[in-house]
């Protein structure tokens, strides 16, 4: 049988994915932010050093991005703030991604009653404005950042559980899943080694979407005074703290605001890239 001798392009697998320049830049930015978060020592000056004589200055040699109300160096605070600015969205992103994956797999794979229960709960949470709940909860219980984060995670779940569940259901009855069952693989192996890998691109996309959402939402909470403590070098907080000066000394507000937008845009671009390549490979099969 010579039918088989035609050689398929083996190199296809090794071809590096083509990354648009903007997405590559976004990746670089994320790496830089992550590096700052891991090594706050990068800060050129002490981010907490108050210097009344230099408050609200524009960019200069000593302070490339100017100073804030208390005369602290904005660049140093941006570097120091990378940690909290990254941490909140990261926790949110990981939390939502992990929980929604588990729920979606449970609902989509096992179906039946499990699915019904999960779907009903999700439907309920879907129809509630998250930030409003976060504010009410924080207001009524006097709770802090942690509670707010939990609320945001809970209310961030529904959309993603729905989408992932649909993806799981789409794949759960594909012949290769059923073949794995018929081969006699235990259920957990089928789920872990066959089902989950096929939805990895979706899961990654969920992470980036939630991360972006987290960046924007958490900075909004800081703006409403519900986020991290005042004076902490968190980007959202820096914007909120220096807003009084927004029309006169724009740097202290603009620098962290731009950092937030860049972070969100970067995550967005990368998430989109993941989704697009995934879509393409699906189209090409």
């Amino acid at each position, binding site marked *: *049988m*010579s*039918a*088989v*001798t*035609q050689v*398929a*392009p*083996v190199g*296809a*697998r090794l071809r590096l994915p083509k990354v648009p320049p903007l997405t590559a830049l976004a990746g670089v930015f994320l790496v830089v932010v992550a590096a700052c978060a891991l090594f706050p020592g990068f800060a050129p000056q002490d981010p907490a050093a108050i210097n009344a004589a230099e408050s609200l200055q524009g960019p200069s040699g000593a302070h490339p991005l100017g100073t804030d109300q208390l005369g602290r160096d904005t660049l140093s605070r941006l570097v120091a703030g990378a940690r909290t600015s990254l941490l909140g969205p990261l926790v949110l992103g990981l939390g939502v991604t992990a929980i929604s994956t588990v729920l979606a797999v449970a609902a989509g794979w096992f179906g039946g009653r499990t699915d019904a229960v999960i779907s009903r709960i999700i439907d309920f949470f879907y129809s509630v404005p998250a930030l409003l709940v976060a504010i009410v909860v924080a207001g009524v219980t006097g709770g802090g950042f942690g509670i707010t984060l939990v609320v945001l995670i809970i209310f961030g779940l529904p959309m993603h559980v729905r989408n992932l569940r649909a993806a799981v259901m789409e794949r759960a009855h*594909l*012949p*290769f899943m*059923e*073949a*794995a*069952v*018929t*081969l*006699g*693989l235990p259920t957990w192996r089928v789920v872990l080694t*066959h089902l989950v*890998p*096929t939805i990895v691109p979706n899961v990654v996309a969920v992470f980036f979407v939630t991360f972006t959402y987290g960046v924007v939402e958490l900075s909004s909470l800081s703006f409403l005074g519900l986020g991290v403590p005042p004076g902490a070098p968190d980007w959202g907080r820096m914007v909120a703290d220096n807003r009084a000066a927004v029309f006169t000394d724009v740097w202290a507000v603009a620098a962290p605001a731009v950092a937030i937008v860049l972070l969100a845009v970067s995550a967005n671009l990368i998430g989109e890239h993941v989704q697009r390549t995934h879509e393409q490979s699906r189209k*090409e*099969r």
Partner: protein
Amino acid sequence: MSQVTEAVPTAGLSTDALSVWLRRADGRRLIAESIDLQVAPGESIAIVGESGSGKSVTARAVLDLLPPELVTEGDVSVGGVPFLRIGRAARHRMRGSEIAFVMQDPFTMLNPVMKVGDQVTAALRDANGRPLSRAARRAEAVARLREVGITDPAVADKYPFQLSGGMRQRVGIAAAIAENPQVLVADEPTTALDVTTQRDVLLLLDRLRRTHELGLVLITHDLRVAFATCDRVYVMYAGQIVEVARSDVIRRAPRHPYTAALLAADPPLDHRMARLRTIPGSVPAPGHRPGGCHFAPRCAFALPACSAAPVELQLTDDDADHRVRCVRAGEITLEPPTAQPGPEPAAALTTDGQPLVTVRDVRKVFRDKVAVDGVDIDVFAGESVGLVGESGSGKTTLARMIVGLTRPTSGTVEVGGVELTAGALSKEQWAAVRGTVQMAFQDPYSTLNPTRTIGSTLREGLRLAGVDDLEERTAELLERVGLPATYAQRRPGQLSGGERQRVAIARALSRSPRIVVCDEVVSALDVSVQAHILNLLRDLQADLGLTYVFITHDLAVVRQITDRVYVLNHGKVVESGLTSEVLDRPRHDYTRRLVASVPQADGVLGLPEPR
């Protein structure tokens, strides 16, 4: 090819050197090469060829319905109008009124959320060019539906999902010809339908062709359908027309080796072949087509000269209409696929002794849908049992119950001595069942996990079967299904459909089962590839003593591969027995209808149109 000759104002459709290119960043690729088609009013032509040969692209190019990345060259004349040269808007007006199009899937073609009556009449205008009134629309819809054989006026108020596949395709045709076009291009209009429905739709098209003086372009991969319905046949291969002739000429005296090979690979309905003819290799993708004769690498008659220069479509000596694209057309003689005596169907069937699978009175109800309704089935070791029936008759459901993927609503299923329906099975019992029966599926594209290599897919089964020397056995398995051992490193994306089906069969074999349930494993494949797989399955049965439960809706395939057959209709077994008995002397009405519906190669659609 710059023929600036004004197209002669003729009725019907003609194309002149119509080519389609794929535009890509790295240059352009030829997909369809210089196609010349001629369809006179009232005439029907067929375009046949294997998957990927460019049939659909040609059809869409004719209507200017290609996606933006595909560009056309050449001319199309519809009713004497140079279709591709007039303005966009004029072309748009001509679509539907002069030239119409029907697609393969009758479900996706129709708007699911619009009543069919409204869809049929959407393009209609009254004498003043205004949209019709509500009442007029409805009357018109009923009339048009009656034309395509739908006499129930209530259908006009239904949504597509409330109709059967055949009805939907009729609605699609009614909508397409609502404005009385001259030409109808139908791209595989019956491929998604059952044989019985397919016959109805073909009869309908044939009738409309006569009554409406319609020029019909029928695209199909089924030679039988082409011969049964069409006056002339264009055989297409790798973007080229390789042979054109009247249907009966092509069927009896093909002059191109490719046509002959296709005919030979098509399994006959009336007897069993010792071995099906196959065509080596596969259709080259655009951009990978060899120079000279595209078929040369797969051709038994190829000479070095074949690949030297592009081959033109030439007239043959035997007929004025018969043209062929082969340099050796004059010298070689192709034997027509005459009837050869097949081997006797396994004479002494071992239908005694202990059956491997016993199915007793099983029912399966999905919500309010009875899929399987009290079926008894036995499968004995070493035999090949067929399950046939039209779509929705419960074949797949039954198969899934046999392998334990679906739990019956009631009744018992026993596999290798283990009763699947008896409460919760122990781990060992499941292991025994899995080791006894394995399954292969229809769709070659989703049958393998795209994220894993072929090797790891196969090793998974081997490991479960308790095999130690995994690498060695993987290679052995691949070889057994006719693939080189190096394929273990590949991913499914790098394999063709036929190769994937081979791997799927190898995966089933990895657990060394005694029974393999094959659910339409060849339905999605071209005849040539189908022949490969059928031959493979037969070899495996002979070598390994396998038992098959073989599901298909294709009676010719059933004849080739099964010893015994169960005919299912609406979830019930209506007839069973030796395959030859059942096919040659069907007793049940339904079976008779099924057999009669297979397009007969005589060029006549046999029976009168059913009322």
